[in-house]
């Protein structure tokens, strides 16, 4: 093996401290090594020199002793390609950043440069040509979550001509945005801007929507994910149903509606809300009389069955079973959104004992003209109009004692919006807002807050509420501090609205572990880079958008959805993907199948393979492997090795110092 060592002067950056000539001389004494120096190795003439030496001296590997590999590794790899060598036959000895710039003693620095170069030679001797791996791309995208972020991402991807599948666990897409009344700061009606998007998604030929469904398993890797989707039994035939609504009009069972945040009723067979997509009801097996009677007595014919009798299309199918769908995808977008903070832990605010202490989402339904009160602000306990309302901000935000140290970002704005809408509904109502700080960073947000305070006369009190309790007359006494005037205030209110924060979806952890994307201590998904890769994740081919990454408002969710979609489109624009060749590989002849490697692999990149002799051994799923080398250190027999950083190479490097 013939190795060429090229020592760079880097002007005087290197040569001022290091005796370059001595380095060249010392290296040239090594067997099979050719060495030379040049003023600027990275310049065109420098590179051309390397190329001509590769060709003339028939070099097999190249060492460049110059600056840090972080700077010019790619440059010189390309030089090698132009010289006809495999780019991975290059090694760099970093004699600038880690030698000439940090030392002053010329002899010692020169000695170190020799050591560094010799170490690089030792490694290069064991270098093997490596080839990027090519994988095909399945050009369809799985979007998990059918809220505004998921819908937007699906629309963007499908309009570029690629197949998209939305999986939504509720019976309708729309997510939390469908529950809102108006949106800040423009006050356009939430449904009016969301519904067209829902319809657009459902009518697109390229978008398939599985509602009332969950992703059960995801395997595979970028370009080639396999997903198993469970479509739960709706008990209503989606093809036959016309959405006439007779079933739920006739259904005799009334239960609290989840969509109405338990403020209004729904039937046992129901569509969650009027504009639901698809407009096909679901039978709630827990509360349906038929299913209940069947559970009690499986032999019987089952009671009630009124919906079945009245359905003109014959669409009710009590014996429907869950359906399992297996599909292949090239990319996955996770848009699972958030959950509202459960204020049960706030004993001081009644821990849910007071009916008239409502959450912001409940108040949103009260404001909504299609909500349980047709838009009248009636307090839940006695349906009396609420004329004095206290809004408490930061309930489940910025409160470490309750395990939520972060700011939920949207509560200041939606509280202002709700206070404004209250004033529009009942102009002489009294609205008080207790806040810590007002965070109105967004286009026209600050102006909106100003308007709420000045034009609508909502009274803002800076301080926290220490206690809410019910007095004898049914009113709620809100005791809080006004830190600006330095006094304690007590307000007797008809209703209290808690601006509950946004917390992660309870399924985040399970989903994250399944797909292999990490989550932070607040259980929000972690993006690949907090600044430069906000929609990407550690797992190639999996993207995130919306509030599952962190609380965000609608415009931000939509923007991130667009970003995620464009990343997917970038992926789909390639016929084949090239994967970095620095990967782990298993020598299956000596592998014991103890799977310590699998136990440590952070990417689930180790799979089982059964050999002809029936022994089970490990196999690296190359497209999942990131090349960290964790498995190599865990393997007791050194059956796994990392291409480009093999055990042998590193041992040679260590021994080169003798």
């Amino acid at each position, binding site marked *: 093996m013939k190795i060429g060592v090229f020592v760079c002067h880097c002007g005087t950056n290197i040569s001022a401290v290091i005796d370059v000539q001595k380095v060249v001389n010392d290296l040239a004494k090594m067997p099979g090594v050719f060495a030379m120096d040049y003023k600027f190795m990275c310049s065109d003439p420098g590179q051309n020199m390397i190329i001509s030496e590769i060709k003339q001296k028939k070099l097999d590997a190249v060492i460049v002793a110059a600056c840090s590999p*972080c700077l010019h590794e790619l440059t010189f790899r390309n030089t090698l390609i132009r010289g006809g060598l495999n780019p991975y036959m290059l090694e760099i000895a970093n004699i600038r950043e880690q030698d000439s710039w940090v030392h002053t003693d010329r002899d010692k620095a020169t000695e170190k440069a020799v050591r560094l170069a010799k170490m690089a030679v030792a490694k290069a001797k064991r270098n093997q040509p490596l080839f990027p791996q090519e994988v095909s791309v399945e050009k369809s995208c799985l979007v998990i979550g059918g809220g505004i972020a998921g819908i937007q991402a699906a629309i963007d991807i499908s309009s570029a001509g690629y197949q998209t599948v939305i999986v939504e666990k509720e019976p309708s897409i729309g997510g939390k945005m469908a529950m809102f009344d108006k949106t800040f700061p423009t006050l356009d009606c939430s449904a009016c801007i969301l519904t067209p998007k829902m319809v657009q998604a459902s009518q697109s030929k390229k978008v398939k929507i599985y509602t009332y469904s969950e992703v059960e398993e995801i395997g595979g890797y970028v370009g080639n994910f396999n997903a198993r989707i469970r479509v739960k039994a709706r008990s209503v035939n989606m093809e036959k149903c016309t959405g006439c609504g007779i079933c739920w009009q006739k259904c005799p069972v009334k239960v609290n509606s989840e969509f109405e945040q338990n403020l209004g009723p729904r039937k046992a067979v129901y569509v969650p809300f009027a504009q639901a997509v698809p407009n096909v009801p679901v039978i709630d097996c827990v509360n349906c009389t038929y299913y209940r009677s069947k559970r009690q007595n499986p032999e019987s014919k089952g009671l009630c069955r009124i919906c079945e009798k009245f359905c003109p299309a014959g669409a009710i199918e009590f014996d429907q079973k869950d359906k399992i769908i297996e599909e292949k995808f090239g990319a996955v977008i996770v848009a699972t959104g958030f959950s509202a903070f459960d204020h049960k832990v706030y004993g001081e605010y009644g821990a849910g004992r007071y009916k008239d202490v409502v959450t912001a989402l409940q108040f949103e339904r009260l404001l909504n003209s299609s909500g349980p009160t047709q838009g009248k602000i009636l307090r839940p306990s006695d349906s009396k109009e609420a004329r004095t309302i206290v809004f408490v901000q930061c309930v489940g935000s910025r409160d470490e004692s309750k395990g939520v140290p972060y700011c939920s970002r949207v509560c200041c704005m939606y509280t202002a919006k709700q206070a404004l809408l209250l004033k529009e509904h009942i102009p002489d109502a009294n609205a008080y807002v207790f806040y810590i700080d007002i965070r109105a960073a967004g286009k026209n947000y600050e102006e909106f807050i100003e308007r709420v305070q000045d034009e609508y006369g909502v009274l803002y009190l800076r301080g926290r509420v220490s206690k809410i309790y019910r007095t004898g007359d049914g009113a709620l006494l809100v005791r809080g501090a006004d830190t600006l005037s330095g006094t304690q205030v007590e307000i007797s209110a008809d209703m209290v609205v808690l601006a509950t924060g946004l917390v992660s979806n309870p399924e985040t952890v399970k989903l994250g572990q399944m797909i292999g994307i990490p989550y932070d201590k607040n259980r929000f998904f972690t993006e690949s880079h907090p600044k430069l890769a906000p929609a990407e994740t550690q797992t190639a081919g999996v993207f995130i958008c919306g509030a599952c990454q962190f609380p965000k408002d609608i415009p931000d969710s939509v923007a991130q959805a667009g970003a995620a979609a464009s990343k997917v489109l970038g992926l789909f624009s390639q016929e084949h993907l090239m994967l970095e060749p620095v990967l782990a590989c298993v020598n299956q002849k000596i592998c014991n199948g103890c799977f310590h490697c699998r136990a440590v692999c952070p990417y689930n990149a180790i799979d089982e393979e059964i050999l002809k002799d029936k022994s089970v051994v490990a196999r690296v799923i190359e497209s999942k492997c990131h090349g960290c080398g964790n498995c190599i250190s865990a393997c007791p027999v050194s059956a796994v090795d990392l291409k480009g950083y093999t055990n042998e190479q*590193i041992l040679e490097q*260590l021994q080169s110092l003798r």
Partner: protein
Amino acid sequence: MEEKKEKNGFEPRLVGILCRWCSYQGADLAGTSRLKYEPNMTVLRVPCSARMSPLFLMKGLTSDIDGILFSGCHPGDCHYISGNMNARRRFVIFKKLLEFAGMEPERIQMSWCSASEDKKWADIVDSVTIEVKKTGPNNKFK
């Protein structure tokens, strides 16, 4: 007197095995910032602290190297999610074993150094060098 001089003149051979995302870049930054530190350590670059098999420590010592340093990203910052967590446990256990077998603890070191900790890197190299100088040459296997 003679022996003391000998010890003072001792220039230890040290190896630093650095992860490419944090520690190696931290060491680069020390260069860019023109910090000055002892020239005894030769640096070897690997992808992640998880790649640093603890057996490298043993191999280094039996190859007459005077001291070895593993350095990776701070816990929680690993580019490969959790590599440094595994690395930490392996390192600690093997270090305990080597010390039990009579190796000097100063020869077997590990540090967390991020890409922005240029000063910390310089300090680490200096203090490791000083410690190993005090410990003296490793001639157990000569």
